[in-house]
C-alpha cells in the first residue's frame, strides 16, 4: 500500500459539514412577504342590520303577524342618553354619565333583565335622533347583541363549537337589530 505524499494530505479538501441554509431562507422570505401582503392590519367585521321589507308572500305576512311570545323593544337615543320602551318593562331612561359618557353598561344590564321576561324575543329597534353619532348606534348594538361573561345565565360555548355558526345559539340577547326613524 503506497503511502500518501505529505502534500496530498495537507491540500485535501474537506467536505462542507454545515447545512446549507440559503434555500430555506429564500423559501421563508417568500412566504413571509406573501403572508404580510395578505395579513389584515385592521380586522374588519360586519353587523347585520337588515332594512324593513314589505312582506310579499303569504308566509312572510303570517310571520310578520305572529307576535306571540314576543315583545317589542325600542331604544331611543338622544343627546341626553338612552330611553328604552318595551311591552314588558315599561319605559326606562339612562342619562349620560360624568364627562358625557354614554351609559351602555347600564343599558346592557337592563336589556339582560328584559330578556328574562321574554326569552323568545330577538328583535330590537334603534330610534336615534338626527344628531346621534354613528359610533353610539354601534355601541348600542353591541350592548344589545349578547350576554357578557359576568351576566347571569351566561353559558360557556363548548370548545368544539367556537367559531362555528352553532355557537351563535349561545348567549344571544337581542341580536336582530333594526334601525328605525328612517
Amino acid at each position, binding site marked *: 500500500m503506497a503511502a500518501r505524499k505529505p502534500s496530498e494530505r495537507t491540500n485535501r479538501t474537506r467536505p462542507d459539514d454545515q447545512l446549507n441554509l440559503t434555500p430555506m431562507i429564500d423559501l421563508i422570505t417568500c412566504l413571509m412577504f406573501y403572508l404580510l401582503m395578505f395579513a389584515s392590519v385592521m380586522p374588519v367585521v360586519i*353587523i347585520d342590520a337588515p332594512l324593513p321589507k314589505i312582506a310579499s308572500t303569504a308566509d312572510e305576512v303570517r310571520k310578520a303577524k305572529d307576535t306571540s311570545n314576543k315583545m317589542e323593544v325600542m331604544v331611543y337615543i338622544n343627546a341626553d342618553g338612552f330611553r328604552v320602551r318595551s311591552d314588558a318593562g315599561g319605559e326606562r331612561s339612562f342619562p349620560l354619565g360624568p364627562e358625557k359618557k354614554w351609559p351602555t353598561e347600564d343599558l346592557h344590564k337592563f336589556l339582560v333583565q328584559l330578556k328574562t321576561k321574554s326569552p323568545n324575543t330577538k328583535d330590537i329597534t334603534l330610534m336615534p335622533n338626527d344628531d346621534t353619532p354613528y359610533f353610539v348606534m354601534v355601541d348600542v348594538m353591541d350592548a344589545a347583541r349578547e350576554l357578557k361573561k359576568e351576566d347571569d345565565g351566561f353559558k360557556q360555548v363548548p370548545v368544539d363549537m367556537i367559531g362555528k355558526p352553532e355557537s351563535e345559539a349561545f348567549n344571544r340577547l337581542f341580536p336582530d337589530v333594526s334601525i328605525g326613524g328612517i
Partner: protein
Amino acid sequence: MAGSSASSFTKKMKSRNALAAGLSLTSMLDILMALLFYLLQNFSAVKSDFSVGKDLTLPASSAMQTPVPALQLVVTRQAILLDNKEIVRFENGDVKKSDLLGDGVTIRELAIQLKKQKERSQIQGAGDPEAWVGNIVMQADKDLPFNLLKKVIYTAGVTDFVMFKLAVLKKEV
C-alpha cells in the same frame, strides 16, 4: 528556508480563519421562523376582498361576523362612494338639497347608481332576478350623524338593497 515555511504556515492559518468567520445565519433564521409562525397563526383563510376606504375611521364593535363579498358603500366626512367611485360630494357636512329628490331623503345620484348595480347583478346572476338578495356593506365614519346616514340607508332601502351590513373594526377584548 525556515523563513519560507513559517510564512506558508501563516497563510494556511489565515485561510482557515477566513472560513470560520463566514456569516452565521442561524440567529437570522430563528427570527424569520418566529415571524413566520406568528403570521401563519394570524393569517385568515377566509377569502375576502374587503378593503377599508381612505379618509374614514370605522367605529369599533364586539361583533364577530366576518365580511362577505358585497357591494361596497363608503360614507366619509366629505363624500359618498360606491365601489370606490365618488357619487355625491357633501356640502357643510350634509347632502346638498339639489342632490336630493322631492321627498328630501332619497339621494338622487346614489339611487340611480344603485339601480344600475342591481340590474347588472341580476343579469350576472344567471338571469334569475329572484336569486338576487340585495347585499350591501356600508363603511361609514364613526362620527357621522344619523341625519346623514339615514338618507344613505333610506336610498339603499328604496332601491331594494335591504340586506344592509355595517362594516366595523373588531374591538380587542
